[in-house]
């Protein structure tokens, strides 16, 4: 899943029989334009719709006004503080989920007691809407970073655990037997065989957990305040400052896009030895 959605196959290729040299330059250009066309069209439609007076500026502020607001937030430094806070909360929790989820997942697939204990908790806890526990977390831990990070961990750790368990169960028996046969110790087996072989699926679990971390971090900030992109949006919405609310959406969208793309890049880098990455370049 390096790229989320792929275009219909062969779309970037020049059609057969066309004069090659000309086509080599023109075709990618046309194709590239087609790719950004709908994004540009959406932006233009937003601006036009907002200026046409169909909606009040409160319902739909113009895109230019929103971009101006983002710029002024950036100049005053608010944008960076809020983005850094949201990223700090979401990514700290994500790191905890990564380490904790993989460790619990490994324990479950290597230790019968751990499996017995965690299996029902994971199978019941995974599909639960854990965000409902947010007020409970507030009750226990207050409204500061600790409780925000905790609720994100509660929500995002389950996909990691589930993916790790499935991944390790799916490692080919022959690989493990061969390694054993060649005298690998348990530790070597884990580090050199099981973890690398399970890596693609574990990464898939992490790719589910990352956007989830951001969703929950934003909700937690909206409910508990304390700055951050979500907190800033909620404050703006309380003051009926809809330009800032829309600016918040654009900012959060950019952060989300960057994180998901970064994760896909990391995946491609980590799995460079794996056959899925050769598909990518072929």
């Amino acid at each position, binding site marked *: 899943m390096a790229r989320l*959605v792929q275009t219909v196959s062969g779309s970037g290729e020049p059609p057969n029989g066309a004069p090659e040299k000309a086509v080599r330059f023109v075709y990618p250009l046309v194709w590239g334009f087609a790719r*950004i066309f709908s994004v540009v069209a959406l932006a233009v439609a937003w601006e036009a719709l907002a200026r046409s007076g169909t909606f009040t500026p409160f319902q739909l502020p113009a895109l230019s006004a929103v971009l101006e607001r983002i710029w002024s937030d950036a100049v005053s430094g608010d944008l960076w503080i809020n983005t850094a806070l949201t990223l700090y909360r979401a990514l700290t929790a994500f790191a905890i989920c990564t380490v904790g989820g993989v460790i619990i997942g490994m324990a479950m697939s290597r230790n019968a007691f751990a499996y017995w204990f965690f299996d029902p908790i994971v199978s019941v806890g995974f599909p639960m*809407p854990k965000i409902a526990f947010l*007020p409970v977390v507030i009750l226990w831990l207050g409204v500061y970073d600790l409780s925000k990070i905790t609720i994100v961990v509660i929500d995002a750790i389950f996909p990691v655990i589930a993916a790790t368990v499935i991944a390790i169960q799916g490692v080919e028996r022959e690989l493990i037997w061969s390694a054993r046969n060649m005298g690998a110790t348990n530790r070597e087996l884990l580090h050199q065989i099981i973890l690398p072989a399970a890596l693609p699926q574990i990464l898939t679990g992490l790719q589910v957990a990352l956007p989830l971390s951001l969703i929950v971090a934003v909700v937690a900030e*909206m409910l508990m305040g304390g700055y951050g992109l*979500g907190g800033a949006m909620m404050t703006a919405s309380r003051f009926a400052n809809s330009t800032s609310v829309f600016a918040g959406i654009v900012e959060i969208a950019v952060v989300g*896009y960057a994180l*998901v793309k970064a994760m896909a890049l990391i995946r491609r880098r980590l799995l460079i030895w794996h056959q899925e990455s050769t598909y990518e370049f072929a």
Partner: protein
Amino acid sequence: MKHFFIRYFPLLLLAIAWELIARLELVSTSALPPLSDVIVAGVDMIKDGELVSNGAASMYRAGVGLALAILIGGILGIAMAWWKPVNVLLVPLVEIFYPLPKSALIPVTVIWLGFGDGSKILLIFLGCMLPVTIGAFNGARSSEQVLVWSARSMGASRLRMLWDVVLPSAMPELLNGIRTALALSFILLVSSELIVAQKGFGYLIGSLGANGTYDAMYAVVLTVAFLGFAADRLYLNITKRTLAWRD
């Protein structure tokens, strides 16, 4: 039955531990009311109809939003796989909007549609549509070329092919996308109701918490968690039956 009991025994242990910790007052009872009190409070709320009426409001919002998302998202996804112009136009938009943390839309849906049902339905629709679209798209794209060719050579019309070949082969991935959407709909429902609402589960949790009636709050939290779990299990069962023709 016995197998079931052994498998879920750790959960029972957790429940007993909860009861004991609360009864022995290892933590304050306001932070963790005993499980038995929580159950009693839950039963009371069912009796006086508070839980049922708020639950009905929540389920209505989630149901309508999810149904719209499945319908429109599914159609969009299959259209993206089936007609190139649609693909060229929509793929960039899907790529941009898919990673958007959907909770960011909560204040905007409120600006557009106010505090009532409309804003929640819109939020759930927008949030749940893309996973369905992507599932339908990937599924429809992977329908075997041989099947498509055979159908065409046997004289099937384009629409007929869509219905008889593309849709069934898109089914597994589409159903998977809907499962993601189902989980997401609960998250969005509860968070939007916690933040702004006048009824619904999220509202109930928030207001009970603010009043300090924590045993009732815990009862609602557990109800929501259980409903999310039950919906997922029910959905899995239906899926298994729908896909029974595959093996």
